[in-house]
């Protein structure tokens, strides 16, 4: 079923149930990898990655570091991939940006590239990192990035970024 429609929600539901029920975890991450090689924007596959790791090894420090590298490699194939960025931010939720400084390093490095002009999700992620840092200077930069998103890079979500900016301003005040 998933061969014909790799994002079929119902098929994934059944697959997850079967994996849990029969304990068939062994090759699943490989299968997810195969799907992401075919379509790096397959949100279902990214979610499945999370599901498999949580249900097997768990997100140990070693696994987290490996997953960051994995995600970064996939982002190089297409920077505006919401699913991949969501997954990267999700890794920081399991742990924290402090414990995983390579995420911030990666983002800051990419600012200097064309991603700094074209990749809205890069700024979304930096805003997330800086909001959680509590550092006043970083919060001020996050406010600038909200303005950048609301004024062109992500103007369809303008109203959200205006709200987000207001919230950040209150933190600095």
């Amino acid at each position, binding site marked *: 079923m998933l061969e014909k429609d790799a994002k079929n929600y119902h098929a994934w539901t059944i697959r997850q149930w079967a994996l849990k029920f029969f304990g068939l975890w062994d090759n699943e991450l490989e299968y997810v990898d195969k799907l992401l090689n075919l379509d790096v*924007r397959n949100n279902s596959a990214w979610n499945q990655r999370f599901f498999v790791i949580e249900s097997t090894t768990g997100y140990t420090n070693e696994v987290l570091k490996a997953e960051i590298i994995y995600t970064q490699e996939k982002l190089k194939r297409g920077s505006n991939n919401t699913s991949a960025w969501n997954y990267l931010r999700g890794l920081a939720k399991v742990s924290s940006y402090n414990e995983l400084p390579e995420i911030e390093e990666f983002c800051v490095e990419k600012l200097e590239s064309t991603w700094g002009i074209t990749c809205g999700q890069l700024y979304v992620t930096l805003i997330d990192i800086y909001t959680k840092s509590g550092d006043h200077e970083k919060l001020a930069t996050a406010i600038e990035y909200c303005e950048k998103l609301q004024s062109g890079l992500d103007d369809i979500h303008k109203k959200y970024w205006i*709200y987000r900016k207001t919230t950040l301003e209150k933190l600095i005040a």
Partner: protein
Amino acid sequence: KIMSETEDQQLEGFVGDLHRDFILKKAIEKKERFEYWATQHMRVSGIYWGMTALDTLNHLSDMEDLSKVAQFVLSCQNEDGGFGGNVGLDSHLLYTLSAIQVLYMVDGVDGINLDGLVEWVASLQNDDGSFSGDKWGETDTRFSYCAVSSLSLLKRIDAINTEKAIDFILRCQNFDGAFGVNPGAESHAGQTFCCIGTLAILDATDQIDVDNLGWWLSERQVNDGGLNGRPEKLADVCYSWWVLSSLACIGKLHWIDKQKLIDWIHKCQDYETGGISDKPQNVSDIYHTCFGITGLSLLGEEGFAQVNPKYCMTNNTLAKYGL
């Protein structure tokens, strides 16, 4: 249906009368049509979609023989207390909710075998708080919503363990703030509506991070103005309901670019036959007509009846039984 670019540009605005005619035609659909038989197992839901659309357009009174509709729907209640999608079909929570919603609109609620229904719904709750859709056991957050909404509409919510129901919903929340069909499942706007609707009816939306969820929901709006159901997927009119109602329930409806969405939904109308389709230029159907119209109501389109985001029913109809 092919339209040239210039024709497309000339047709603007909402063509409510065409949609009303489209729905009324469906109501007396000839049995020779393939679509009639392909959807016969969910007839009760089809009636709900059509009538809700009419109700929102303030045209419910254009439907004839509402008592016949009541009679038909009531005849779908089975001995086990639940409703099937059509006469003689097995009971399922999906059709049970649709049945109650239709009966509200046609003043037929008093005809329900109430105790039977309540007992049957309560029997479908599992130990972990989830609900199975029917006796075969499949769990799905949609079924939590159907159970909770059904009992809430009938004022018998006390029949289930609401704390456990909330508990299960919370376990279906993912790291991105949205919800899936079961714990661990991919976040999906339709499932998210079912979870948020359940929490809203049970007055428990304060138990989630609404800012996080609100961002995931508003991120569903793509550049052409439409809403999708998950990241990296195409926009579809039905998400105008699933996403907007969720945002309304958590007080973040203003995070959407309303005008762009209204314009996009308008483009999904069929200006010849009436009805609304999932995407511009596709064939229209009752389901997308319903959710396109209820979505436009939430967006404040003029002349529409107010729709309640928790129940996807008009406030006028809900008021009939004091809700």
